């Protein structure tokens, strides 16, 4: 049960690290919020938006943040809350106040370029999925009958990996995953900017989620037919060898995905693949 000590508190403070746009200075703003039952960080941000002023009475534009499903299944609302990366929707105010009475601190993830306030650009996550070819390369979408049979055990091993919502928690916690921020140049076209961004991403670490997706598709009965292409990506620059085995990823994953198991598997598969390739078989 929620401790009565905090539910009876009438107000609490929210400290938000704000930034107006990419490459700009950030600053802290503090808001005072009336406590309501069953609040989560999303409802706190909604109250901040409706309120429109800081604790010292200055007018304040609504804090920008991403959210969609609010059920911890879309991955949108990931941010750093009281120093821990997680989804804002499942971050309950009463629990947060139990751990740190009186104040909640919100900041954007540090491994992605800030778009504005708590919004970050996670396109590198999706680019990484392209790099490892995280899909089943079916011939086409015509009616070709059912897929291959799979055992219950195989499904039970694949399903947890398939729940990855590309939220970014694992890479935020990963010491090897460094922020890559490409600033748009004046007059640069969309295509040119996109190409420059992708080039920078493609030379940097894939991160645990993408490695785990490569493992997922190399397990799929059809996906394994082009396992080598994925192993090639895992072997390349920023591949699985960049992992420093800190094991932070698995401890912050909101879905409990066995990321370190995936990484170990990927590492072994890359080794075997490299040896085979060395002998030309």
């Amino acid at each position: 049960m929620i401790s009565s000590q905090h539910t009876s508190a009438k107000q609490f403070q929210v400290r938000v690290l704000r930034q107006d746009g990419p490459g700009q200075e950030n600053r802290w703003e503090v808001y005072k919020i009336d406590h309501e039952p069953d609040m989560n960080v999303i409802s706190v941000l909604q109250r901040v938006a409706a309120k429109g002023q800081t604790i010292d009475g200055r007018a304040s534009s609504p804090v920008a943040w991403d959210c969609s499903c609010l059920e911890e299944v879309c991955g949108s609302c990931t941010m750093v809350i009281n120093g821990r990366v997680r989804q804002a929707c499942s971050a309950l105010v009463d629990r947060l106040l139990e751990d740190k009475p009186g104040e909640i601190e919100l900041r954007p993830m540090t491994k992605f370029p800030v778009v504005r306030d708590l919004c970050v650009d996670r396109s590198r996550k999706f680019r990484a999925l392209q790099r490892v070819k995280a899909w089943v390369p079916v011939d086409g979408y015509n009616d070709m009958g059912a897929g291959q049979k799979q055992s219950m055990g195989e499904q039970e091993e694949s399903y947890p990996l398939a729940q990855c919502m590309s939220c970014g928690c694992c890479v935020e916690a990963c010491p090897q995953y460094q922020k890559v921020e490409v600033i748009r140049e004046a007059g640069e076209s969309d295509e040119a900017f996109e190409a420059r961004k992708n080039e920078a991403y493609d030379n940097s670490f894939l991160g645990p989620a993408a490695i785990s997706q490569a493992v997922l598709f190399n397990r799929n009965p059809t996906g394994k037919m082009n396992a080598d292409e994925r192993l090639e990506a895992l072997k390349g620059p920023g591949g699985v060898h960049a992992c420093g085995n800190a094991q932070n990823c698995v401890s912050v994953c909101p879905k409990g995905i066995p990321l370190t198991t995936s990484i170990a598997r990927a590492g072994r598969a890359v080794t075997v693949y490299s040896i085979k390739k060395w002998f030309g078989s």
Partner: protein
Amino acid sequence: MAQQKVVVVGGGLAGLSASMKLAELGVAVDMISLVPVKRSHSVCAQGGINSCNDQTRQLGDSEWKHFDDTIYGGDFLNHQPPVKEMAYWAPRVIDLMDRVGVTFNRTQEGFLDRRRFGGTLYKRTAFSGATTGQQLLYALDEQVRRREAEGAIRKFEAWDFLGPILDDEGVCRGVVAQSLLTMEIRSFPADAVVVASGGPGLIYGRSTMSMVCTGSAASRCFQAGAKYGNPEFIQVHPTAIPGADKLRLMSESARGEGGRVWVPRTPQDTRAPQDIPDSERYYFLEERYPEYGNLVPRDIATREIFDICVNEGLSVENDRMCVYLDLTHIPREELDRKLSGILEIYEKFQGVDPRDTPMKIFPAVHYSMGGLWAGYERSADGGLVSGSPDNQLTNIPNLYAIGECDYQYHGANRLGANSLLSCIFSGLFVAPGIRNLLSSHKQAASELPSSLFEGAVKQHQERHDLLLGRTGGSENPYLIHQELGNVMTRAATVVRRNDQLAEAYQQVSDLEARAQKCSLSDTGNWTNQNVVFTKALIDMFPIAKSIVKGALQRDECRGAHFKPDFAMPSLKSTDDAGRREEAEGWCDRFAANTDKWLKSTVVSLKDNEPDITYEDIDTSSIPPRPRLYGLVGAEVIDEVWTERLRQKQATQPEAAQPEAVAGSA
């Protein structure tokens, strides 16, 4: 001719399946989505996806029966050809999802496992843990990413669709959209546009829908002249967890495993629920429905919970409507064994263990059966003509609607596990028709005079600048949204009364006028969520008014639309002859009501007011019959109706013979 292009608005199951199929057919696609497509609302679907399958077939199931269950469940308001086509495609849709890597649960032998859902006797539902929607969405997202890597699809994620571009003849030639980051407004010339933007749950304030489900994309098409079908048919789920930010679904299985629904007899009793003795608890479902108890059908449970809070004032809390759903009398081990998945959801979001403390739940708006009006080309066997450019086409040439934002598949009420199917099916099925449409065009949209596109951008830029520049406005868009949600939830959800609906129409119109006076707290031109939300809010009103007006005018009960003043009564007679006579009268009344109301509501917007006409429904495969669940005297009514149907068919031999006749299940 320059390269032709299709713009797909929305990246949920429908938009993704349309895009990947179009790409396969060699058509270039631009996708426009508010969120990265992987974060679309389809991720929220838990239960599964229906199809007749090898297991159920052995037990007498068929595609025809899936078709019949969907029509019966929809209370015959669905046009039958699209539903028939969908049911016959369903096994193939699931095969394809299996092939593209969806991690469906398996049987011992390695086949797809199936579960049973509401509205059918068969285990038709394939599922992937408790996150089937997420798994289907990811598999399609992966296929689209693959096509994107090949250069066949371009994604514009974090872009807001502002409206279709129509030429002087009213033909759709592209769309205008706005970047949510840079706020740049840009035109996208297109030879066809597919709107797959999902449902309008946010019109009700909080619902089970995601925050992106504002209905704004459908509304912008509606305002541009597209017709809207069956707006008043909104599905409400009986048990959701009322959160301060959204309403999260609580599965029906909680009641299935013995959960009891109650409220304190003293309004807003301040004691903890455990401290309230049994004698002071009102187990209203058990008292009002001694036979069914807590397991009354979904719509009845919804209506009773609503009634106890709204009309009886017995809500557990004062400022928030909810009742207790109590599992605490069931041993912990049993709960852990049978219900751990859903109980964890409650625990995660409420911070309370439902094994110790009764859950607080309330019905929540869940799905819109209505949506943009779309047509089809009927085949000789009562299905659809594959590859016809008329399938899923709105009344605006070149503008298509698929998925939840199209009104065609679910009639007056949607069956569980049919929505994922309708989204993927309509997406896959629309693609060959669009390819054929494009082959018939003589000119690519990108070759049209640039003035057409520049004019459209200018118009939207002016609207945007006007909103940003508005100073001294007295209204806050977030508060108006709350008020709209309250009005809509009160009048246009579970129980509908004409006086309340008429009042609500006025209130919604007043709110609409006030929304025009919103001033923004953010007037910047970088990632301005304030202005994006305000635009979406303003665009909620045309659909909100259509929902209310559609409900006001439809004086009957059908599926999710329930008006107690027009409910068909149970039979009262106790002797056989009296019952028979009463049943005859009942059937006369039912037949007259069918003649009058078995019609689609079709709305066009005239001078910003909804203008309603009614359109006949294609019931060529399955003749309408009464839904009799829980009605006293159902068997007699069923008998009379079936006799009448047989007589009619004897005199009209060309009418199709239904395999399944009237049922009272």
